[in-house]
């Protein structure tokens, strides 16, 4: 379907983009308002004549926000590296080797990825508590495996299947062992797919809320989503700081999305679309 896009189409696009982005734009303009203009008549005025960075300053001065960012970064990075590593072996085997029961294994992986987190949380919480792992990085990395590992296997299988099968035959004829074929021939070709998977896994781990909320309750180990959600005071909601914090976490995501959009889309739709 290669129809030409008319001017009306661009109007529609502009409206669509505006509607989707509106909440972010509003957060951005609110975040630079002085506190008084967040309430009352000025609250509905999109622009302020007294822009200030006071809210941003407060986020870093009055809250351990840098700590939250660091915690999220550590947990999401370690989770990503280790799950993608384990998953790439499994996905390679499922996609390219012949053995009995691999459809069953893939089915298992898919069903586990659909497990509601709430169904696993009570044993995991009690287990981590008994081991003294609540309020630690490991306390989140372990439960995050429940959704990141199936996700990575699922996406990687699709990528591994796309690599031409003749390559293995050729490697075999040249006398390469199975592991040599994997490391020297297949893996280099799968790097883009692995990178894509890593981006998606990182985002999933970065955004996780339920485990982070229940397991790491100490400020020193809170992740960003929980940290921001807990900004709320007992009596007042510090909207100024919340808008600023939202902008701070959104900006890197916007940059990441702009840089890797093609990869993210191919990762999201892999496995969901039969080509």
């Amino acid at each position, binding site marked *: 379907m290669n129809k030409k896009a008319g001017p009306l189409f661009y109007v529609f696009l502009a409206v669509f983009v505006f509607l989707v982005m509106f909440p972010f734009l509003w957060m951005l303009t609110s975040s630079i308002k002085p506190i008084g203009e967040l309430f009352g008549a000025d609250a509905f005025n999109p622009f302020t004549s007294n822009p200030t960075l006071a809210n941003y300053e407060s986020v870093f001065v009055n809250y351990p926000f840098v700590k939250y960012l660091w915690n999220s970064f550590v947990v999401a990075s370690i989770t990503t590296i280790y799950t993608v590593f384990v998953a790439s072996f499994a996905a390679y085997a499922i996609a390219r080797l*012949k053995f009995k029961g691999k459809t069953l294994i893939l089915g298992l992986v898919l069903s586990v990825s659909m497990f509601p987190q709430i169904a696993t949380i009570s044993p995991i919480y009690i287990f981590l508590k008994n081991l003294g792992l609540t309020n630690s990085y490991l306390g989140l990395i372990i439960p995050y495996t429940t959704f990141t590992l199936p996700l990575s296997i699922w996406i990687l299988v699709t990528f591994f299947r796309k690599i031409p099968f003749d390559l293995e035959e050729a490697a075999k004829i040249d006398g390469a062992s199975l592991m040599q074929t994997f490391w020297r021939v297949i893996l280099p070709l799968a790097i883009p797919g692995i990178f894509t998977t890593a981006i998606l896994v990182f985002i999933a781990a970065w955004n996780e809320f339920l485990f982070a909320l229940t397991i790491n309750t100490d400020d020193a180990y809170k992740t960003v989503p929980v940290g921001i959600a807990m900004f709320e005071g007992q009596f007042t909601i510090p909207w100024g700081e919340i808008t600023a914090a939202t902008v701070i976490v959104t900006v890197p995501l916007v940059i990441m*999305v702009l840089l890797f959009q093609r990869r993210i889309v191919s990762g999201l739709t892999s496995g969901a679309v039969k080509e």
Partner: protein
Amino acid sequence: MEPNLSRGNKTDTASVKKKKKSGESKAGYLLVAPALILILAIAIWPVLQSFYYSMFDLRLANPQKNAAHISYQVDLHKYLDNYPFLINLIDEEMSEAPGESAEQLEALKVKLEKADEELKKEGSVKEKYDQVDEKLMVMKPVSKDLAIAEVEKDAALQLEKTIKEVNEEAKKIKGLKNEEDVLGLASSLDEAVIKPNFIGFESYTEKLQDKRMWLALKNTTVFTVISVFVELVLGLAIALLINKAFFGRGLVRATILIPWAIPTAVSALMWKYLYDGQNGIVAKVFAEIGLVDNMTDLLTSSTGAMFSVIFADVWKTTPYMALLLLAGLQTIPSSLYEAASIDGATKWKQFTTVTLPLLKSSILVALLFRTLDAFRVFDLVYVLTGGGPASSTETISSLAYKVMFEQSNFGDGSALSVIVFVCVAVISMIYIKFLGRDLLNDK
């Protein structure tokens, strides 16, 4: 492979192939093993464990019920932290108490000592008793494994009965110098006996009659059905509209991805600000166009709150839906549309006869993922409405969370989470039936 001349060439290659094949399967299992073990240990075991916990009266805040036990047990740590001191105290009191009270105290002591003798006779207690005692003497920490000893039901009940009697009788004794201490020690002794907290399916029968559970299940269903349906229709419309070559594709794609990429908790907080009854711009706009009567209705009335939650979810995930469907649309060869238009099919006819049938599996996959995702919704509700007002947006996951972590009732909470799990399993089975094996096959 050594050539075997006595055999025919054919069987030889077959055996080589067979050997290669079995080597390949071995490698296959070996490569899958780490992932499989992790999945079994971290995802499947906890689900089974949740089911197991759901059959116990498990309360983390209650020391006698903070673990699941099927058998009667004695907490020797607790017991030995009290028993020797109680005996000492009774001795002390006896030397100073008037005649009648002294006799009563003597009787208590005899009773306790007899019970103590009986307890020491119990199988697993024998070894542990002295070890725990020694450790307590030198103030060393006592591990849980060492402190808890399994005892026969009769013995446990007997010990409990004796302790109860001692408690009763101690209250009657007059003229004690340290009455409070005696009674305190005697009643803490009571906590040493741990009864099994196995309750079978009681939590389930209770939950199935619980109005709050049904309300949560209803809310979850309403949220799931409406939000997924709206997302599908809007997503399909957007996918159809942008399935063409145009300037600025990258920008539109990035726009689509941003709501998907930000943490749900953060987007929920953002919408909470936009919906705010006094200062929220979206609330103001909705009130102005007559969608709601008052700005405050959005978060403080039950329909308003449900609408707000659904609207925020539609905003966040419609783009994702559109993306999945767009990818599906792009796999439909344009020659089919050309053929259809040559045959004189109208646009609508093309949509129903070409687009929809070929998009069916993409739609079903997108629906499957979205339905399951929506059914387990937690962060959005927890941050945006907290389940309120008056439980009107409480979902089954947020209810389970509250029961577990706010009431620290892990038995009931686990039962609820098993209910969520069963619902999710049923939903996916229905979808998989429609999808067939499409999802898993190689081609």
